[in-house]
């Protein structure tokens, strides 16, 4: 497998329009094209992001004063439940699926996903699920938090709770359909030359993600169906009034919902591993370490769930076991962070929107990771559990991590998806506002939690007001940061500079076809010129340092 890469070659002229083109109607119909589905996922996810964000702004406005004066406490609980549910199930998870759908077949040189129809079905379960969830606002939205712990969820409004359960079941099923597709496609449909160790790291992270989805989601489904019986049929699986055990629900819920955190972050770990080397013009540092650490996180992610329950009904030995496993998960995560830092060290960095969002991801996720290790420690977690320290922690992971990674990915692949370049100035303004707003909103929350402010409250002790006002101001900046983004996307879509097939001079396969890619991706079978991250070898010729037989053996073993 000797490779030769020519640098500074003139960029190929845009494709002549000789292929059937996508019509705009395709994006509103039942298309089986993975690229259409990917865009559908992404746009839908962004739609719900703005709704979820608006709910968050209402909450922050309420929290600018200690008394519940802007909204009623009941409505506040509906807001927090819906904000959590929307952001997790209708924003980050579908957005991860969006990139997975769009990129996996392109990255591995396939024409489409393994099961295109299933893929379309998976997407088309999301809008009904989302609309169903929204409809609950008309007859009393759920108000037991996105965790819906019984017995509270059994006594705080039947219809809203049942709607919540049904829509989560729908969205969970969709997520499983997606995962089946991702695993099958990655394992079976790679182009012949690509062994599992020369596929892009995004595919590794989606492999890890899909494993978690397939193992975790059914357990959530089971819990929700039983909860539904308790709610509607008066059974007592979880209802202590009839001898049920509410703690069992918590175990089942977190058995999915902790891995769900990794389901939400791993795809963006993958995206970061793609973005950094391209814009730093350096190979990814420690390909295998990053790939295997995804799998390690995925495995460990399955045995840490009870750390959400340290102050709940868990006996001491169980708390100690889950403390140990949770601590260990810091190791593979640390490997990734250090490897990313080493990737940009000594590179030739283009500080464009995609790259600065990726660096923003690293610097914010770091804080979430460090506070995560603290939280693993049971004696400390007992103090801060269910406080604003937790709120700060998971927003640093999910916003500072996933969402920054997601914006980085949007800027990075926008030229590929649309055939247009984004406006870098607006992109940088977007980044600056997001980064500043994000830190002003969530950094003070650490202190609030440590000092004694519990979460999920519409009324709080007046001593916390100053910091809460700071958080609220930050959240407004964060809200405003959406405008340069929306404007940039819309403007670039119509007026942006036309993108060549490979504007970033990247080496992964999705950049070897037209921008946007033609309907079945590649005009002719793509050729694997180089490994996904072979930057810096210029015109040197390198031989694969592995025996082909070995690689094939490994592929078979993995498959």
């Amino acid at each position, binding site marked *: 497998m000797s490779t030769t890469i020519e640098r500074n070659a003139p960029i190929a002229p845009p494709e002549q329009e000789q292929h059937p083109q996508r019509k705009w109607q395709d994006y509103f119909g039942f298309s089986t094209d993975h690229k259409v589905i990917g865009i559908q996922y992404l746009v839908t996810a962004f739609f719900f992001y703005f709704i979820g964000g608006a709910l968050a702004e209402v909450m922050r406005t309420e929290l600018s004063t200690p008394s519940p004066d802007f909204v009623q406490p009941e409505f506040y*609980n509906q807001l927090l439940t819906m904000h959590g549910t929307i952001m997790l199930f209708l924003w980050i998870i579908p957005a991860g699926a969006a990139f997975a759908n769009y990129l996996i077949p392109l990255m591995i040189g396939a024409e489409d996903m393994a099961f295109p129809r299933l893929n379309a079905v998976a997407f088309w379960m999301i809008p009904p699920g989302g609309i169903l969830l929204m409809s609950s606002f008309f007859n009393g939205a759920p108000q037991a938090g996105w965790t819906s712990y019984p017995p509270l969820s059994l006594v705080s409004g039947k219809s809203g709770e049942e709607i919540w359960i049904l829509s989560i079941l729908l969205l969970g099923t969709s997520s499983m359909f997606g995962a089946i597709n991702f695993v099958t496609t990655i394992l079976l449909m790679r182009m012949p030359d690509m062994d599992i160790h020369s596929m892009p790291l995004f595919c590794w992270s989606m492999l890890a993600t899909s494993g978690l989805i397939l193992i975790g989601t059914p357990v959530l489904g089971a819990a929700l169906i039983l909860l539904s019986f308790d709610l509607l049929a008066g059974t007592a699986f979880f209802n202590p009034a009839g001898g049920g055990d509410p703690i069992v629900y918590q175990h089942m819920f977190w058995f999915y919902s902790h891995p769900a955190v990794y389901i939400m972050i791993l795809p963006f770990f993958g995206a970061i591993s793609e973005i950094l080397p391209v814009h730093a013009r350096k190979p990814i540092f420690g390909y295998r370490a990053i790939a295997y650490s995804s799998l390690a996180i995925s495995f460990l992610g399955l045995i840490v769930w009870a750390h959400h329950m340290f102050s709940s*009904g868990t006996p001491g030995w169980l708390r100690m076991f889950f403390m140990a496993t949770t601590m260990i998960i810091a*190791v593979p995560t*640390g*490997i990734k962070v250090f490897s990313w830092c080493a990737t940009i060290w000594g590179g*030739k960095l283009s500080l464009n929107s995609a790259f600065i969002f990726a660096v923003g991801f690293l610097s914010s996720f770091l804080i979430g990771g460090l506070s995560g290790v603290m939280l693993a420690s049971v004696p400390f977690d007992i103090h801060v559990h269910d406080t604003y320290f937790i709120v700060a922690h998971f927003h640093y992971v999910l916003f500072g991590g996933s969402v920054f990674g997601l914006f980085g990915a949007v800027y990075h692949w926008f030229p590929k998806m649309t055939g247009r370049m984004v406006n870098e100035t607006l992109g940088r303004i977007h980044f600056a506002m997001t980064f500043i707003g994000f830190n002003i909103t969530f950094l003070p929350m650490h202190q609030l939690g440590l000092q004694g402010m*519990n979460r999920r*409250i*519409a*009324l709080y002790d007046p001593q916390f007001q100053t910091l809460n006002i700071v958080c609220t101001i930050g959240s407004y900046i964060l809200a405003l940061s959406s405008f340069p983004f929306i404007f940039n996307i819309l403007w670039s879509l119509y007026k942006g500079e036309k993108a060549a097939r490979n504007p970033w001079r990247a080496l992964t396969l999705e950049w070897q076809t037209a921008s946007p890619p033609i309907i079945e991706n590649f005009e002719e079978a793509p050729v694997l010129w180089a490994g996904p991250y072979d930057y810096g070898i210029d015109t040197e010729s390198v031989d694969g340092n592995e025996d082909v037989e070995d690689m094939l053996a490994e592929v078979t073993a993995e498959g």
Partner: protein
Amino acid sequence: MTLISLWYGQNHGLLPVAASNDAGDVDQLFNFMMTIATGLFLLVEGVLVYSVIKFRRQKGDTTDGPPIEGNVPLEIVWTAIPTVIVFILSIYSFEIYNRMGGLDPMAAGDSGPQMAHAHHHGQLVALDPDQKNIALGLGISPDSEQGANPLEIKVNGIQYAWIFTYPETGIISGEIHIPVDRPVALNMTATDVIHAFWLPEFRIKQDVIPGRETKLVFTPNKIGQYPVICAELCGAYHGGMKTQLYVQSEADYLAWVQENTVATEDESTQSVAMNPAPNAEFLAPYASDIGVNRDTLAQLKPTEIR
């Protein structure tokens, strides 16, 4: 950098007063973690900022960076260091947790949910003093005097109030008064939904669960007034489910006991204080009353509610 970390780890000023020895231990653990976290934070952010400034691409430079694909010794180092750190943290946390009484067999075991019918046998299994492995939570600290003569208080969480029953004296109160330096053992349950009993100044928290008994044992060492907060979403007015804990000198505490015992006995219609039935039973009428408010509490104990 090390100096900054060490200094900030001790002087972050983020935690409220520590009102028990256990709280002091937790704070030391937090300070230790804060020191390490600050160090790592400065290291990684330093690398990022330095890289972004130093390694920018020059205009017109289209060449690539050096083709460094990894460095095994370096990778082993940065795998080993976090591993060692988390091992140390785990052992340290285990030690502190054990010192707080988290592994006390009286508290660390779990007998599972108590069946509703248990209430009708006159005594809850969970309250059987002879039965070991009774409840969840933090128990007696090993090598301490906490087991000797703790002040037992029953805690009941209802939407949206805490009700404290003192079996020794028969006092029922909406606030909790305890003498300084005497161990306190809280036996906690909930009537309607899950609540969580949190004392921020004592760094302890435990969910209170309907149908189960959970336990917290601690020894206050600072006189003062501290908030008691419900930390598990329990309904619309979750944020208002708060009361006060008064750590008093022995004399003040006895005076409070005196005052309230008399008040309770005078009120002949309020025989609840002497009611030998388990907590949950006499509170059953209130269970259905989701909107327990100050008036309801005032009926329970006419004097002390403010």
